[in-house]
C-alpha cells in the first residue's frame, strides 16, 4: 500500500445520515471475485435510473464534484453490511477520505485497511462541511488535523496503529505474521 500523509481536495457532499453500504454499492454488484473496477457501481442506484441514464441532480453527477477526493456525509456513514466492496468502490472512484460525525465500525475498519481515511469530526465541523460543498480541505495524517478554508483546524481521532500503517505503507497482515511465535504458544497452551 502507498504511504498516505496529506490529502488536499475539494469536498463532495451527500447530506444524508445513515448512508448504508447497500447504497454505497448495491448487493447485485458483489458477484465478483476481484476488487477491481467497482467505482463504476458506486452509489449506482442514486447515480443512475433503472434504464441506466445518469441522474443529473445527484451530487456525484454534477460537474463541480469531478475530481473531488474527499466525501462528506451525514452521521453514521457506512452502516449495514461488512462488504469491503464499499471502500473498494469509493477508492476506485477516486475518493481518498470520508468525513462524517460518525462512521460505522466495520466500514471504518475496512477503510483503514485499504487506505481510505475515515475521519470523524464534531457536530459543528460536520455541519459546516455539509453546508459548504466544494470546500477546499487539507487532511494531514501525521498531525491528525483537518484544515478548513475558513481557517479552522480540527484534530480527528484515528487508531494509532492503523495511522502508523497508513503513514508508512505497512500492512497489518505482515505484523500479524510477525507474531507467529506468540500465536503458536497460545495454541499450545489453551483449550482446543
Amino acid at each position, binding site marked *: 500500500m502507498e504511504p498516505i500523509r496529506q490529502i488536499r481536495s475539494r469536498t463532495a457532499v451527500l447530506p444524508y445520515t445513515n448512508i448504508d453500504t*447497500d447504497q454505497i454499492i448495491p448487493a447485485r454488484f458483489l458477484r465478483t*471475485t*476481484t476488487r477491481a473496477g467497482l467505482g463504476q457501481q458506486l452509489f449506482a442506484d442514486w447515480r443512475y435510473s433503472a434504464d441506466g441514464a445518469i441522474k443529473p441532480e445527484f451530487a456525484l453527477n454534477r460537474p463541480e464534484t469531478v475530481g473531488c477526493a474527499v466525501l462528506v456525509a451525514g452521521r453514521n456513514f457506512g452502516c449495514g453490511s*461488512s462488504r469491503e466492496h464499499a471502500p473498494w468502490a469509493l477508492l476506485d472512484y477516486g475518493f481518498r477520505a470520508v468525513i462524517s460525525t460518525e462512521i460505522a465500525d*466495520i466500514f471504518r475498519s475496512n477503510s483503514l485497511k485499504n487506505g481510505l481515511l475515515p475521519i470523524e469530526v464534531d457536530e459543528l465541523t460536520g455541519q459546516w462541511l455539509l453546508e459548504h460543498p466544494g470546500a477546499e480541505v487539507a487532511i494531514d495524517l501525521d498531525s491528525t488535523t483537518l484544515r478548513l478554508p475558513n481557517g479552522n483546524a480540527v484534530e480527528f481521532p484515528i487508531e494509532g*496503529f492503523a495511522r502508523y500503517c497508513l503513514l508508512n505503507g505497512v500492512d497489518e497482515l505482515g505484523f500479524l505474521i510477525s507474531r507467529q511465535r506468540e500465536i503458536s504458544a497460545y495454541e499450545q497452551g489453551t483449550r482446543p
Partner: protein
Amino acid sequence: MNGCRVDELRPGAATHGIANMKTMFQKVWEQHEVVPETADTPAVLYIDRHLIHEVTSPQAFTVLRERGLTMRRPDRTLATIDHSSPTRTDQIFGGVPIAIESAAEQIAQLRKNCAEFGVELFDLKSDQRGIVHIIGPELGFTQPGQTIVCGDSHTSTHGAFGALAFGIGTTEVGHVLATQCLLQRRPRTFAITVHGALSPGVTAKDLILSIIGEIGIGGGTGYVLEYRGAVMRSLSMEERMTVCNMSIEGGARAGMIAPDETTYSYLKTRPRAPQRAAWERALAHWRTLASDADAKFDREITLDGSKLEPMITYGTNPGMVVAVSGSIPDKRNDPVFDKALAYMGLHAGARIGGQPVNVVFIGSCTNGRLSDLRSAAQLLRGHRIARGVRALVVPGSQQVKKAAEAEGLDRIFIDAGAEWRESGCSMCIGMNGDTVGSGDYSISTSNRNFEGRQGPGARTLLASPLTAAASAVRGRVTDPRDFLSG
C-alpha cells in the same frame, strides 16, 4: 497494565486480582488475547471459528496466493454457499445451469479455493448447506465462550450462545486465513436488560425491532451488546439468535446472551458439539462465562418486555419502526425522514395497518429457522394467501428444510399458495435473482429495509414471521393478534 507480565494475562489466569467484576464479553476477550493491546498496538485476538462464503472470501484467497501463504488452521474454518446461490430446486439438484453466470463463477471460485487450501465446504448439493449463521449453530460448530468471525455483518447471530461473534471485511478474512488472528481494539460494553414477559403474538423479532427503535441504528456503534433480563432467559435458542442477529442493525458489531440450560440442551445433541468427557469439561467452562453480579457496563438501558407489541418498519432503515397497530410518525421537514417516506411511498401520520403488500418473504438468517417456519405455518394453516400477493418461503438451511418437510410445513405453505424453495439468503439480499420489483411493497422477515436491499426500487417492511403470515393472508399489513384471538 503496568507491571503485568504477559503470561499473567493468559487464559485462566486472574487479571488485576479483581474477582467477580467481569462482564461476559471481558472474560471471552481476555481468554483470546494472544497479545494484549497497548497504547501503540491493538490486541492480537485468537479466532476459534471462522465461517466463509462465496461473496466475501475470493479476494482474501487471492491475497494468500499472491503472498505465497498457506492457511494456518483450515480445521477451524467452514465454508458454505448461501448469498448468491439459487433457491430453485432444478438449479441445485436438476442439472439446470445456475441462471446468473457471475454467481456460478463465484461459487466455482469458492470450490476451487476450498479444495486448494483444504477447507471443508458444504457444496450446493450438501444436505448440511445453508445460510452461514444458521448452519454454525445447527452443527454445534458454534459454542459458548468462543470467538467467531465471518465476512458477514450478521455474524452477531452466534452471540446467542455467549460467543464473541462479529462480522469482518475481506482483508480481515485473509488475516484469519493466514494467522487465525485479528488485530482488534477492545470495544465498550452495553447492557440491554428486558424485564417482564412478552405478550402473545409478540416475538423475538418484535423485541429486537423495539430495541433498535429505542437505541437507534447507530446507538450501538463501538459497543458489544449484552442482552439480559427475564425476557432473554425465557427465549429459546432460535429466538435468542433472532435477537443477536440484528445487533448490527443497532450499530453494534456483536451482541451476546449468557449461556444457560437452554443453551446446553440445544447443543448437547449437535454433531460437532464436544462429546462425553470433553462435553463435561466444556460445560464446566461455559458455566463460568456469564457476567459477574457486580460487573460494570459502559452503558445500560432497561425495557419492559410486557409493554412490547408486534412491530414493523415503515422507512429505509431498521430504526424507523412502529407498532403494527400504530401510525407512521410525523417528522416532516427532517430531510432523511422525507427522503425515506418518498422512497417508501408512505405518508407521515398514516396508519401502517392496512397498507397493501405485493410480496411476502419468510426466511433469512434472522427468521429462517424451524421455529420461524412453524409460527408462520401455524397462522397460515387453513388460509389462502391473498390474490395477487407473491409469497416466498425459504428455509435457512437444508436441515431446516428437511425438518420442516417432515412436519408437513411445506404442504401448509404450498397449499396456502406460497413458493417453497431450497435454502439460502435469497430475497433478503436479492443477489441470486430472488428480488422484489421496483415500487412493490414487501413484508419481509429479514433484517434490512435499506433502499434497494431486495432489488432496485423495492420497498421493504421488516416484521416477524407471524406478522408476515397474517399480512400474506389479508394482502395488507395485519396485526397477527387478529388471528390469534380467533
